[in-house]
């Protein structure tokens, strides 16, 4: 049985890599540019992941765990072993990746139809899937970091898919570099842990933590550093700036990577490393997550680009998950990761479907200036694109936390955990405020998006007739993921829409932290349970207020959005301009760094080398001139022939250095050396 897990995992890992290799080298020469190669590979991994998932359900063992490692390098004392860890979390994650990746592969057939780099695109999707699965399967920090960076590079390649556009090229670079900032922290964390524990494997590290090999401030430092990696990948404040720009990539890519899987890697890492986080590190994590959830939601309120709304919503939702890890309910974080992957990927496909349709309609009118992503150009698409509309609406209900949909369950678990955390630690009262505040705003901006896009009169009547539903390759994933936003898939075998209880909670059970003295998983669960009811009532009311407000403003138009914007004064401008983060980073970090680099290079080349180093040459040359003169005029002319002649020769040979006759000099040095030997030996 165990072997089957390992073999399936190996196949799941390497099939997409195989597809990548084939596509890179011969993709373009294959019929249909080889998209079928990639698609069959990914569907096969979906099959295997589904098989693993079903075996997991059949086994129904919350403690199921299989690990296998091999020695990667061995220098005697310094060893690195790499390997797989397959447990229930891994299996669920593999299925999510395979499922969303399959959807993206299929969705892209039509979305990228006729693209100039169609086979390249599929190649990079394969590279991404490979790297993402690598993260999921890692049982140690080294392979985690390796695949972590590979995910970063596939993201770079896919964001920059349309690199002719400068904005796309910039966004790709920005994503990679911002992630690297987090990765530096990640790497420092790895070094700190390894120095203390002497191993990279999770199991050994946890053991070391339990034994106290690493503790106190060092452990907090290590935990926060490791978490910095998660901050980069999961786009947490203040490293959140890259994700909205990443929307420059093709929309199916946004769905796969920048909504469902890659950005969830940070959450996944935090979930995996939860057992080594000290209370201080967890508090830090909670505040980062809570603030990000709140802060990103305030930006999403005012965005007009449909993908930007979704991007900031993703940042905010990831903040939720991080908040959950920080407050101790890390299984809730993973639960939200799962439900969010489905509904957020679906929302992106939906936006892709809308953009695709807009694009074609505009194209038909030869209008290349109108932005097909701007919701101010949409409206009334409900009748024209019913499948897209319904599927997006279901997912919106899910993300807004409405009962009977998946998001309600997972969000509730997080908010319950946060509330109970604040009950036990009243000084952290801000965390639930962040949480519930973000929930209210989420409900508002998501319904604002639905109303602006699908309801009301069309804002561009001239293209309205050309808007139509997308082809089957695109609506298929929409229907599938829309369906998966309904609660029942997460609570089976039970049907209570108000309780998270189901296969997920049975199979993913929180484990105690390994940090000595940390609160036990049982206590956390107990507290969260008590907070469940008030949290649910609160979250339902804030969601209701958000939806109501959106309806009044954008559907019924009873409240004027413009008046509200005016009345909120500078706040509206701050939100619309994303709090000027890009501008300030550019002004206070990027530009000064470039200027500093220019100064250093100038100093190095124009001052240090030109004056100091060449100065040496000048001084030497000047001295030898003097000695040459002295030789010639002082000694040669002054002394008798024999001595004079030899001195003249010396002067000549010295001058020869200056004229560049290097051969002589070498000879001179060698002769000198030999002379010294002789003198000494005698």
């Amino acid at each position, binding site marked *: 049985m165990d072997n089957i897990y390992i073999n399936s995992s190996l196949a799941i890992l390497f099939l997409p890599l195989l597809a990548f290799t084939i596509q*890179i080298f011969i993709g373009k020469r294959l019929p249909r540019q080889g998209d079928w190669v990639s698609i069959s590979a990914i569907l096969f991994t979906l099959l295997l992941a589904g098989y693993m998932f079903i075996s997991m359900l059949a086994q129904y063992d919350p403690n199921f765990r299989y690990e296998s490692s091999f020695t*990667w*390098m*061995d*220098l*005697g*004392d*310094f060893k690195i072993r790499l390997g797989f860890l397959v447990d229930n979390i891994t299996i669920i994650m593999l299925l999510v990746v395979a499922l969303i990746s399959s959807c993206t592969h299929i969705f892209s057939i039509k979305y990228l139809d006729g693209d*100039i780099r169609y086979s390249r695109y599929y190649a990079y999707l394969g590279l991404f899937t490979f790297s993402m699965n690598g993260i999921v399967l890692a049982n140690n920090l080294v392979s985690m*970091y*390796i*695949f972590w*960076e*590979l995910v970063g*590079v596939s993201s*770079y390649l896919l964001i*920059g898919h349309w*690199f*002719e556009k*400068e904005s796309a*090229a*910039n966004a*790709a*670079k920005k994503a*990679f*570099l911002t992630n*690297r*900032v987090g*990765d*530096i922290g990640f*790497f*420092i964390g*790895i*070094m700190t842990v*390894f*120095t203390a524990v*002497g191993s990279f494997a999770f199991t050994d590290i946890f053991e070391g933590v339990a034994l106290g090999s690493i503790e106190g401030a060092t452990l907090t430092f290590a935990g926060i550093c490791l978490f910095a990696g998660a901050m980069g990948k999961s786009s947490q404040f203040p490293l959140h700036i890259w994700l909205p720009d990443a929307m420059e990539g093709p929309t199916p890519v946004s769905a796969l990577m920048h909504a469902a899987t890659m950005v969830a890697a940070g959450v996944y890492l935090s979930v995996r490393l939860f057992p080594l986080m000290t209370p201080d590190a967890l508090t830090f994590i909670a505040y980062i997550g809570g603030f990000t959830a709140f802060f990103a939601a305030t930006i999403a309120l005012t965005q007009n680009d449909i993908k930007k709304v979704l991007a900031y919503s993703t940042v905010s939702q990831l903040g939720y998950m991080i908040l959950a890890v920080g407050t101790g309910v890390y299984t809730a974080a993973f639960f939200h990761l799962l439900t969010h992957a489905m509904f957020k990927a679906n929302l992106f496909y939906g936006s892709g479907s809308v953009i695709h349709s807009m694009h074609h309609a505009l194209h038909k009118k030869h209008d290349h200036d109108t932005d097909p992503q701007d919701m101010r150009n949409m409206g009334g698409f409900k009748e024209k694109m019913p499948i897209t509309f319904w599927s997006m609406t279901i997912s919106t209900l899910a993300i807004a936390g409405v009962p009977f949909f998946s998001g309600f369950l997972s969000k509730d678990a997080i908010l319950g955990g946060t509330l109970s955390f604040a009950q036990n630690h009243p000084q952290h009262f801000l965390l639930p405020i962040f949480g519930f505040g973000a929930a209210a705003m989420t409900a508002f901006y998501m319904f604002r998006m639905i109303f602006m896009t699908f309801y009301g009169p069309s804002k561009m009547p001239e293209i309205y007739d050309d808007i139509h539903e997308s082809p089957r390759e695109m609506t298929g994933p929409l229907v599938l993921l829309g369906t998966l936003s309904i609660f029942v898939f997460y609570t089976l075998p039970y049907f209570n829409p108000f309780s998270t209880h189901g296969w997920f909670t049975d199979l993913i059970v929180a484990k105690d932290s390994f940090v000595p003295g940390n609160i036990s998983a049982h206590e956390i669960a107990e507290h969260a349970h008590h907070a469940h009811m008030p949290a649910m009532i609160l979250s339902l009311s804030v969601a209701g207020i958000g939806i109501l407000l959106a309806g009044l403003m954008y559907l019924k138009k009873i409240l004027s959005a413009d008046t509200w914007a005016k009345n909120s004064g500078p706040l509206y401008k701050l939100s619309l301009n994303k709090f000027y983060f890009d501008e300030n980073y550019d002004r206070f970090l990027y530009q000064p760094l*470039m200027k*500093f*680099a*220019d100064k*250093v*290079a100038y100093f*190095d*080349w124009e001052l*240090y*080398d030109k004056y100091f*180093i060449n100065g040496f*040459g000048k001084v030497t040359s000047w001295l030898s001139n003097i000695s040459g003169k002295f030789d010639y005029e002082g000694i040669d002319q002054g002394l008798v022939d024999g001595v004079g002649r030899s001195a003249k020769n010396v002067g000549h040979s010295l001058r020869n250095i200056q004229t*560049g006759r*290097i*051969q002589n000099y*070498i000879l001179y*040095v*060698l002769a000198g*050396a030999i002379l*010294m*030997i002789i003198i*000494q*030996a005698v």
Partner: protein
Amino acid sequence: MESNLLSLLVWLPVLGLLGIALIPRHRTKEIKWMAALATGIQLVLAIVLWSKFDPSDAGMQFVERADWIPSFNISYILGVDGLSLPMVILTALLCFIGVFVSWKIDHAVKGYFALFLLLDTGIMGVFVSMDFFLFYIFWEVMLLPMYFLIGIWGGPQREYAAIKFFLYTLFGSVLMLIGILGLYFTCGQTFDIQVLIQNAPEMLSGVMWWGMSAIKVIWVLLFIGFAIKVPVFPFHTWLPLAHVEAPTAISVLLAGILLKLGVYGILRLNYGLMPDGVWWFAGALAFLGLINVVWGGLCALAQTDLKKLVAYSSINHMGYSLIGMAAVIAAGSANGANTTAAQAGLAGAVFQMFNHGTISAMLFILVGVIYDRAHHREINGFGGLASQMPIYTGITALAFFAGLGLPGFSGFISEAMCFIGAFPVFKGIVIASTVGILLNAAYFLWAFQRIFFGKLNDKYSDLAEINSRELFTVIPLAIITVILGVYPAPFLNLVKSTLNLIIEMVASGSPIAGM
């Protein structure tokens, strides 16, 4: 036959040189093929050497010994161990590739290839010499052809670059020579490196010259000689100039092998003969490494000439090696006898120098490819080449990503090992130098974007794709980078016994008392 393998490796290029001398100057094709033949056989011999090498033996293998100038105890001694073997293979490989990179040389072909082969012999000789005097001779022999290769076949500022390179390195050589003679007279009048390794630590300890410890004096003399080659800040300014002005193949050899002579020399001689000095100098070494990393990175970020950018990236990359080397002192009892860290750091440093050899060679070849077509290297003067030259773009992307230390390429592993090894002893320095990871990514990606992304510059709509000869020179290097990046064990197994011996020696040393 087998016992003469090293001599063959060293002198084969000279045989090729004699062959070239016999070919009339206008038969350029024959001259080129003669050079290819000599370096090709050399490469085969290097592989034979590798296959016969016993990695479990930490000491010298294939030792050849002959008297040369007995009155001064100067002998002809050759040998390889785990430290030099990778460099021998790298030298043979890059010289062979270098011949094909030089294929388009059309001016004074005969002289070029003759000097090229002489250079080959010089480099190979340095790596296998186990007599200090012989080592020095080869060290100097190497300079001369280099001077002419840059000065005659180089770019517009070639003469300035050549003389600067020459004087700079000669300055180092002179100091090194004094150091060698100091060793010779203090340690029993021998140049035999193996004997010196045995005796020098003991014979030098306690010796004072002008109130200073002899170890420190000799250490600094040798170190400056080698530091110029590495190059270690502040001895680095010859490098950008020489790299930029040199013809492509010579830049490849400069970056790929000559820089490694510095690291090799420090490890073989400074570390080998003066393990106590390591204790004294390791902190400075790590600090210099940090400066190299940051300084090189910042300078690279500011460059607008692609070749200069790659040149500064070498300074940046060699910094990692220095940091890794400094990690060796972790193994001492004063630092908790952490041999784990010492092994990671030292193996990382040696692996890094090999990887930089392959990666920077690729980078310089690729810069040469675009320069041959566009006749300039201004990063801002291109734009959009990705749509015009997809294969070239792909390979350059691979080389750039290898250069910025992306996992999956060998450079990542060695950089990470250098950091991990040095971390326990030099926490602050290591944390500060991780900023290099960011700078690396920044300068490569920024350059990549400006050259390849955006709309195609109309001027370059007829730029030809990379041709098969050029591909032939890059692909072997790319394959090595990827294979060792995925599975580094073959390399590390080759070097580990020898490196562990060095660690043992350093660990048993102790900080020098007094000045």
